[in-house]
């Protein structure tokens, strides 16, 4: 606004002044050069809500390891006369219909849910990355065939497929992980393939090639760093969805079977006692929701932090 009015009123000689070379250099603002990751981390740490949920998540992880030790009661000991006791100073979350300490059971169940989610999503990422990388690098007829396999697998109804695999292979940690990872990696594979193909065609990779860089150099220097951000986001999305599937399967009695149990199986137990002892349902409900909420909030914050367009 201001410059506009100025430009009309004043003659050119008054609008412009000669600039001394020295003063120009003195005024130069030197911005510290921060890398992409440092910048992303800085933006993530600035997000207070995400930090809050990160703390909650860390506390939950620590409690899933230390929980039973803190209360001094293990999760299988049956206290004969003390069934269905409401939360009190001795049993912090109460006891279940068999007289087992719910505080210890809640954290052990959380441990199972976390473990399954972490391993299943890592498996998904590793298989998806390898598969996608092979598709992108080999190309041609191999790419075509591998893409068809991905298309067929990704058309299958996920929950139904997992259920079917669990029926065939039985119920246990390994079988559950296998079933959950069976078709979950297809999305990751497509993502990695697309990203690598895009990067391979990009100008700076071409420039690096023209400068005579080796294959390994280009992979380590250009392809990997530009894919890691995507993979982190993919992981942040995968974990909640695995927790969802696992808990619903265990709730239906198809996932983890006794003696193994997770928050999902605790929900099923809580439902049977719901009318008389609601706390048995509330405990796993709250933990499960809090777990997924933390992962979602952190995932959202990561998406904002890793977005290069928001960089400043």
């Amino acid at each position: 606004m201001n410059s506009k009015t100025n430009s009309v009123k004043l003659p050119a000689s008054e609008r412009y002044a000669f600039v001394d070379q020295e003063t120009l250099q003195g005024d130069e603002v030197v911005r510290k050069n921060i890398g992409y990751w440092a910048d992303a981390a800085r933006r993530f740490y600035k997000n207070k809500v995400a930090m809050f949920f990160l703390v909650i998540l860390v506390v939950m992880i620590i409690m899933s390891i230390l929980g039973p030790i803190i209360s001094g009661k293990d999760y299988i000991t049956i206290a004969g006369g003390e069934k269905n006791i409401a939360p009190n100073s001795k049993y912090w979350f109460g006891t279940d219909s068999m007289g087992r300490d719910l505080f210890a059971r809640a954290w052990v169940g959380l441990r199972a849910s976390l473990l399954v989610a972490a391993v299943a999503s890592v498996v998904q990422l590793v298989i998806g990355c390898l598969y996608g990388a092979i598709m992108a690098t080999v190309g041609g007829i191999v790419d075509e065939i591998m893409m068809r396999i991905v298309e067929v697998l990704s058309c299958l109804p996920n929950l139904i497929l997992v259920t079917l695999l669990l029926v065939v292979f039985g119920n246990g940690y390994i079988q559950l992980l296998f079933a959950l990872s069976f078709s979950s990696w297809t999305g990751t594979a497509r993502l990695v393939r697309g990203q690598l193909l895009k990067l391979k065609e990009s100008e700076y990779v071409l420039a690096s090639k023209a400068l005579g860089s080796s294959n390994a150099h280009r992979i380590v220097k250009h392809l990997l760093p530009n894919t890691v951000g995507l993979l982190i986001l993919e992981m942040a999305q995968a974990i909640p969805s695995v927790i969802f599937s696992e808990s619903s399967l265990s709730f239906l009695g198809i996932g983890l079977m006794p003696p193994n149990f997770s928050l999902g199986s605790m929900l099923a137990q809580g439902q049977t006692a719901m009318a008389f002892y609601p706390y048995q349902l509330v405990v796993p409900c709250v933990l499960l929701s809090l777990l997924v909420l933390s992962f979602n909030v952190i995932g959202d914050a990561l998406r904002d932090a890793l977005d290069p367009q928001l960089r400043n």
Partner: protein
Amino acid sequence: MGKFLLRRFLYMIITLFLVFTGTFFALASIPGNALTAKIVKLPKAAQERVIEKYGYDKPVVERYVVTLKNALHGDFGESIVKSGDTVQKILATRLPATIRLNSQQIVLGVLIGIMLGIIAAMKRGGPVDYGILIFCMFVTSVPSLVIALVLQLYCAGDAGIFHLPIIGWPKGVDMWFGGWEYTILPTIAGALFYVAGYARTTKIAMLDSIYQECTTTARAIGMSESKVVLHHVVRNSFIPIITFLPGTIAGVLAGSLFIESVFGIPGVGSYYVRSVTGRDIPMILGMTVFYSTITIVSIFITDILYGIVDPRIKIINKKD
């Protein structure tokens, strides 16, 4: 477009065939099934006769050919657990409940989602927008299972706020348009998960069209604000939302597996869970093919819709 559709259609058939074959052989490899549990107490001669009746005395490949031939005519065989039950019969008796539940969930979820999206886009940046954002984060994070159980705990039964029935489903004349008190809680439990997705998509689509030239022109020629929003912004935002719908249908159908189990609804989902836990081989096979068909067809329709909405999709697909 025609060639593209034909190719997708062929894939659809191949995928279905692979699902059938894979499921058949996977199920055939289970050591024990409903049949072994059923005949364990019978005398030897009777055992053999029952096995013969279901055709389990023949080699796997022969059984596969016979089953495939029958399946092409829509016959997946008889339930082992309950004689007389066939996939057709189960679908005829149980599909109405599932269809009603799912369509109510979709209508509720999509409507609330679109409304929240519109409100968020109109009041963008303000506290209302922020509140909707938090609400969406909340409903995507709390598993539908937990929502279902909490609703059951606090809204149903004698102790609940609304005294709604805890489990059950309207029968007979009320099958389609009655017994609403039974359907409220399961509908809400299944619908909330989809609210966030539709709200976000609507908001983004709205913000896109708010800044388009036709909207500016409409404002410039003096159209009232509500007319601008309804005629230009909302209408242009529907296109991306419509492409979402088929995926939601498949998702809701899979979600009814546990929603139906929680609320004791006599639908297809709860039957599938029961046949899975009972190792009822013919029914599992039939149901898996049924679910896969729905999912594959909805992906096919999504592809078509994308093709119609965005002509660029075809080119990308050709490159794949």
